[in-house]
């Protein structure tokens, strides 16, 4: 589980270092958002000069999958103390959900210990690796074109997300609508494309 997290955080740190944005925004984001896809979306889109509305909308749409994790864990968290119900959701990244959902039948206090241990481990590795990317970024020679790792990472996330025929339909529709709306200012075409893709995916799954 840690294996994909490390290169992701490294690419994110490099992307922040190579962008015209201050590193402070990157530091803040990796603890405030604590989600790689959403933060990389915010960093790359704002560095490209996208409008605030498009950046926020794209970042939030990326994160909507967390509703599923939250709904799945609601019964598990119901028996937990209040402080844990407030702190726990902060750590609920994809990998955290994947690992800890295997232990939901444990007694509440042992689930809580496991959840916090795993969450803190991911958090520490994530922050340290983003910081490493921030430090290494300016040192690496420009000919290595490490900034190219950002579009590659999005391509990797895209192929990982296409796990069914309707998902493929969704991706093709989203790409086509985004292509057709490249002229829309502030990159709002991303949001239009995303909603078109979601609608197409739902339509394809009902056939």
């Amino acid at each position: 589980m840690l294996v994909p997290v490390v290169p992701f955080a490294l690419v994110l740190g490099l992307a922040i270092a190579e962008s015209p944005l201050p590193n402070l925004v990157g530091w803040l984001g990796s603890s405030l958002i604590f989600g790689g896809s959403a933060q990389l979306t915010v960093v790359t889109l704002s560095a490209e000069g996208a409008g605030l509305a498009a950046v926020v909308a794209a970042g939030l749409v990326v994160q909507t999958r967390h509703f599923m994790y939250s709904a799945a864990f609601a019964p598990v968290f119901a028996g937990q103390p209040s402080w844990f119900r407030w702190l726990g959701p902060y750590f609920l990244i994809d990998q955290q959900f994947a690992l800890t959902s295997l232990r939901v039948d444990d007694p509440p206090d042992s689930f809580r210990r496991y959840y916090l241990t795993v969450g803190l481990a991911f958090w520490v590795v994530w922050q340290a690796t983003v910081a490493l990317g921030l430090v290494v970024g300016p040192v690496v020679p420009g000919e290595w074109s490490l900034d190219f790792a950002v579009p590659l990472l999005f391509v990797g996330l895209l192929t990982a997300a296409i796990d069914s025929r309707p998902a493929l339909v969704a991706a093709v529709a989203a790409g086509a609508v985004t292509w057709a709306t490249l002229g829309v200012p502030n990159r709002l075409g991303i949001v239009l494309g995303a909603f078109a893709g979601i609608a197409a995916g739902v339509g394809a799954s009902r056939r």
Partner: protein
Amino acid sequence: MTLSVVALVATVAVGIGTYAMRSSFIHALADRDLPPAVREALRYVAPSVMAALVVSLGFGGSAGVGWAEIAALSVGGVVGWRTRSLPLVLVAGMATLWALRAAL
């Protein structure tokens, strides 16, 4: 608004929104579940958003995209499709880019 202000405001907004989504059902909606139609729609968020981002970032910028870049992204796509491994996508894509640039 400068780029940095947009990034800062967006980071705070997306951070608050992310926590709100992660805690939504744990706090406010504890006795409810996601409607099946919403659950269905959420399954297509990731492929849609990622495809939109790849197209917009790849073709919407001012910088020209060369053949080496397109080839490297294609290799990354094939590797990701076959292996579903993010590290392998990065290694294969970067290696392709470096090899093509050295050869051309």
